[in-house]
């Protein structure tokens, strides 16, 4: 039995619930390894992984890169500036070029939804979606789930608020269906312009204000607001957004459950989604998420690149 049946990880739905839990269990082991003085494992020696990042990304790419290095895979970065795509090379040429190089896995990030599917159609390599447009970001979802699971010891039955620009968020695009599938209740908290066309398609409920649902939330996941999108057309100003949807000490101390946790995919806009007091609070687990990111990505690569056979 292979530990992940799907060849690729493009949508979070490529994983069964059991597989998601297996990733989380294995990630716990990798998290311990990441605490060791020597963080290197020989596990994926000789495997080649390409990080194809056609959209600027520091955090996700670094996290994948560390995961690859710690598992001893040979990895290569193609970022937007070094990629031929910006010179007019088509996606198919890119796919076929890397395919000819016989790589084992491609971690792909692009600003257009569906990019990974096209790579998968034209390559032998296994594809891991590092974020495609406004579609999905499954490894971010796994690290969010890991952080939630580690804290609560369960996912089922929890109510998770996802706050902010849901429409443009691949984070929400994969987290909400995963939570729904695992028996949690995702709620999209945003004004209508920030809501997706059909929230229930992603398994989510809808709230227009944070304060009306905050007391019910076990997890408050604050999405990053893109400044250029926030101002004028979607919400009047960052100031008004922050007043309505920002997490501040008043909300945290008076409205939020005492044992709720706060997540953020990063990078945070201090003073917009979240205030400095909230960031300093122990319930704000953004660094735990970053830490979990390397571990879940190690788990995913181990489980996807390991052979189909079972160890006897």
């Amino acid at each position, binding site marked *: 039995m292979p*530990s992940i049946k799907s060849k690729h990880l493009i949508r979070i739905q490529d994983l069964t619930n059991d597989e998601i839990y297996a990733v989380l269990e294995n990630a716990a*082991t990798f998290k311990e390894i990441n605490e060791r003085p020597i963080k290197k494992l020989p596990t994926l020696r000789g495997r080649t992984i390409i990080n194809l990042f056609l959209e600027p990304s520091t955090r996700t790419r670094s996290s994948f890169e560390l995961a690859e290095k710690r598992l001893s895979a040979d990895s290569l970065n193609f970022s937007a500036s070094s990629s031929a795509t910006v010179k007019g090379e088509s996606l198919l040429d890119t796919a076929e070029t890397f395919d000819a190089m016989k790589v084992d896995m491609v971690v792909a990030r692009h600003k257009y939804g569906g990019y990974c599917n096209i790579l998968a159609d034209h390559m032998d390599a296994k594809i891991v979606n590092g974020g495609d447009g406004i579609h999905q970001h499954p490894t971010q979802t796994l690290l969010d789930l890991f952080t939630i699971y580690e804290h609560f010891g369960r996912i089922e039955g929890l109510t998770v608020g996802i706050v902010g620009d849901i429409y443009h968020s691949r984070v929400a695009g994969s987290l909400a269906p995963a939570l729904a599938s695992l028996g949690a209740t995702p709620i999209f908290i945003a004004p209508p312009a920030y809501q997706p066309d059909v929230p229930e398609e992603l398994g989510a409920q809808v709230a227009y204000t944070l304060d009306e649902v905050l007391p019910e939330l076990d997890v408050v996941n604050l999405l990053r607001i893109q400044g250029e999108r926030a101002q004028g057309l979607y919400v009047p100003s960052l100031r008004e957004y922050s007043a309505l949807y920002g997490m501040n000490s008043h909300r945290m101390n008076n409205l939020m459950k005492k044992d709720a946790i706060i997540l953020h995919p990063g990078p945070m806009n201090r003073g917009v989604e979240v205030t400095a007091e909230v960031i300093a609070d122990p319930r704000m687990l953004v660094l735990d998420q970053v830490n979990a990111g390397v571990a879940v990505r190690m788990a995913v690569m181990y489980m996807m*690149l390991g052979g189909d056979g079972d160890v006897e």
Partner: protein
Amino acid sequence: MPDTVKASLMNEQDVSRSLMRISHEILEANGGAEGLAIVGIVTRGDIIAHQVAENIQKIEGSAVPVGTLDISLYRDDVATKISPVLHRTDLPFNVDDTTVVLVDDVLFTGRTIRAALDAIMDYGRPNAIQLAVLVDRGHRELPIRADYVGKNVPSSYGEKVMVRLKPVDEVTDVRIIAADPTESDAAGDALPPEIDAITGE
């Protein structure tokens, strides 16, 4: 395929006596328990490791640290097969300047021990690593030799040497399972997974 038990090699008392002898040998070879740490390889080596540590405590009156090691991530065959679920590695002591006694149930090709040596080295620089096994069945593929052996068991390559240990198994014993004449290298497929997990390396 029904398991064909070719021979029963050790019963619970035999295992117990062997481990007691090994415990004495470890203490004798190292001049006591000072600076020792016992590390068992999951999933049966760790049970043996705890038994050995307990014996040492009885004999010497002092506790030795015990750790467990999952070598899945150090295997040389990850490309073809993996452990779907990893176990925790737990070394609750500083490996540096310690004499580590690595413990496993069956010594076969030596590949598991090779992986375990790498794994321990990633935690630090021990003074020495010694190897204790309940059963040495031969067929080494790497230059690895055990310092302490419960029982040497001549076996043919295709046979399985099965160790069952309480409390993860119902009984404690060691048996040889005959090779399946119809399948040479996939004979383990029909075995229950908990037994499957311990027979090879």
